């Protein structure tokens, strides 16, 4: 992390976080600091994304080719929801085998992301010299320093394993297009299944249990409350000394449990379908067929997720006008940013909002923490995931950088278990594809949970061509700007109140930005809020020099 610092005299300043990515574009987080505390924040996405424009007028299946290329990291998730958008629009029949293979592929992509994100991105920041006085610092640096840490290599190398399973079924990873309306384009053999199982077991033994948990997957998943987690920590030296045990102890020591809360309102669109209950994909029956559930938590109550309640407010985005529209009515009419700035527009990202029953439109945090809070909602069907742990943690401790990271890591154990089950359920003598009828008109909605959160496509087909295609990414939910009521987006909210130890090197803000794992490279710019002088600029991602 390089800080180009400017001398600071005033007590109030702005920090600007800027991202530069070849794939997804850039993100600038501008932060105003007063007396060492963040008092305001603006997230500015600096690259126009034109997928919707690329897709208009193309063959309906173009989404299967184009959307997996949106991202070099979660292309499989893009494919998963793009295929369901077409399945629902064309009213296809999807054989159970295809649903299982799609689930396996989606989960494997996330299993890949979890250790890679932790070791190659997040944990590097924990070795920052700011923490050199911490009791556990030496141990943290010994394990998690980039390239030299004892866990770094095994974490990063093992992360490549689950996507080998993806490639067995999908031909390649990333950017596969093997999921098609009506099923999947593969005919797995018994040896494909057994190879996949052995790769998965390698992942479990080598990293998940061996390095991360220090216990069996089953033992970890017995924990239902924060107290259970603390008891688990003290149960055995292997728990305390595992990477997870060290992470929890270190967070509590350096205070990562104290800031970066975010809005405290969560959205999951859910993912993984029960093979029998989503044979005929349709929008209405989606929630009931999910294994990892969809839902909205407004801070107090749970609500069923309804795609019809999603809005995109572009009041502060570089698009014409200031409406808040459902994606089916979405507009993508860019304006010149120089003109837009005169109308208080400051980003290329729209502000996704959700209309609660009662009509209030709110920002919602997407991601693993959102999924795991929704997993705690009572009333799950027998085939659905019920897991009260993170709802309890959020209620006991409140959300924070630590809790958000723990939720992401928790999913490695859960998804390992699911993939293992699904692999044993594939019936090699049954179909993987049923040729659908291509309907010339229709509307479809497909969604999933990428590693980073809720990801959805809305498609409108007219005369056999794409009339309108809208994609809302989890990053959009999290990095969205203010809406027409002036309410901030989730990351903007999460920054407020963070205490910055050294305004010229605000590593705390990097932790917050990274805990959301937005698919953008962030650059943080710190400004004195009184003098508007830039104090620091650093790119979020790389570790301390």
């Amino acid at each position, binding site marked *: 992390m390089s800080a180009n610092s400017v001398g600071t005299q005033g007590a109030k300043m702005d920090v600007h976080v800027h991202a530069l990515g070849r794939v997804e574009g850039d993100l600038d987080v501008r932060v105003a600091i007063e007396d060492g505390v963040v008092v305001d924040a603006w997230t500015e996405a600096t690259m126009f994304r034109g997928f919707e424009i690329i897709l208009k007028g193309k063959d309906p299946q173009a989404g299967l080719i184009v959307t997996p290329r949106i991202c070099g990291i979660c292309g499989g998730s893009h494919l998963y929801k793009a295929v369901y958008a077409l399945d629902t629009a064309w009213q296809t029949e999807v054989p159970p085998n295809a649903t299982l293979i799609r689930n396996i592929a989606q989960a494997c992509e996330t299993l890949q992301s979890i250790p890679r994100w932790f070791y*190659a991105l997040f944990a590097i920041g924990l070795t920052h010299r700011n923490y050199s006085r911490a009791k556990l610092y030496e141990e943290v640096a010994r394990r998690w320093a980039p390239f030299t840490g004892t866990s770094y290599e095994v974490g990063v190398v093992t992360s490549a394993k689950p996507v080998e399973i993806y490639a067995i079924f999908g031909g390649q990873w990333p950017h596969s297009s093997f999921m098609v309306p009506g099923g999947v384009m593969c005919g797995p053999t018994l040896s494909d299944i057994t190879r996949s199982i052995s790769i998965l077991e390698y992942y479990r033994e080598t990293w998940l249990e061996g390095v991360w948990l220090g216990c069996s997957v089953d033992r970890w998943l017995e924990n239902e409350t924060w107290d259970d987690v603390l008891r688990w920590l003290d149960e055995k030296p292997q728990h305390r000394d595992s990477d997870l045990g060290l992470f929890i102890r270190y967070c509590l020591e350096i205070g990562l449990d104290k800031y970066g809360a975010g809005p405290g309102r969560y959205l999951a669109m859910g993912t993984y379908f029960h093979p029998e209950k989503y044979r005929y994909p349709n929008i209405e029956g989606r929630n009931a067929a999910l294994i990892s559930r969809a839902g909205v938590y407004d801070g107090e109550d749970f609500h069923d997720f309804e795609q019809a309640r999603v809005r995109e407010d572009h009041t502060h985005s570089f698009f014409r006008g200031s409406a808040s529209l459902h994606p089916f009515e979405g507009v993508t009419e860019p304006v010149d940013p120089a003109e837009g700035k005169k109308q208080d527009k400051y980003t290329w990202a729209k502000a996704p909002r959700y209309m609660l029953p009662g009509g209030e439109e709110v920002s919602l945090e997407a991601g693993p923490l959102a999924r795991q809070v929704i997993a705690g909602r009572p009333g799950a069907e027998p085939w659905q995931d019920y897991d009260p742990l993170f709802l309890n943690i959020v209620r006991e401790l409140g959300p924070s950088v630590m809790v958000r990271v723990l939720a992401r890591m928790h999913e490695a154990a859960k998804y390992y278990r699911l993939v293992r089950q699904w692999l044993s359920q594939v019936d090699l003598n049954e179909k993987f594809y049923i040729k659908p009828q291509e309907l010339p008109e229709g509307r479809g909605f497909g969604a999933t949970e990428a590693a980073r959160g809720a990801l959805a496509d809305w498609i409108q087909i007219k005369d056999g061509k794409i009339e309108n295609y809208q994609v809302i990414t989890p990053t959009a939910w999290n990095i969205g700007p203010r809406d027409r009521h002036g309410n901030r987006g989730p990351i903007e909210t999460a920054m407020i109140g963070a205490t910055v130890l050294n305004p010229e090197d605000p590593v705390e803000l990097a932790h917050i930005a990274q805990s959301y794992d937005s698919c953008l490279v962030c650059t943080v710019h710190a400004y004195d809020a009184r003098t508007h002088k830039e104090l620091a600029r650093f790119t*979020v991602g790389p570790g301390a020099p």
Partner: protein
Amino acid sequence: MTVIIGCGNLLRSDDGVGPLLIRRLWELGPPPGVRLADGGTAGMDVAFQIDGATELIIVDACRTGAPPGTIFEVPGEEVETPPLTAINLHDFRWDHAIAFGRWLLKDRFPRKVTVFLIEAASLEPGMGLSPAVQEAMERLAADLVRRLGRDERVG
């Protein structure tokens, strides 16, 4: 074994030349002992694709100001970007991947690395190559098949 990795973004016009060249090589039929990989916009995974290669060839688009369709052939050591500390998962390019692969594979890292860069005319959002880049892609694909089909190696 020779591994050829085509990198770039299919959704940004000529930046898709790497993945499209891989597809073209597949159609032409790669010579024995050649493995093809569509690196797309993945970062670190390019490094994982290198394992097992004695020779590595990377193809990507570039913007140098030369006439569109110009093909540059660059020895790997010229474009590798140590140190590794300034890497972000979302901004991880093949130059990082080479450096990362060298760290990852240690003595299994390929003895020879060559990078072919094709000058792009347009990087605007959109699919498809401009005529000059399409022609350069065809030329390079045929050339790689010819060179790798013989015992003498590219270089």
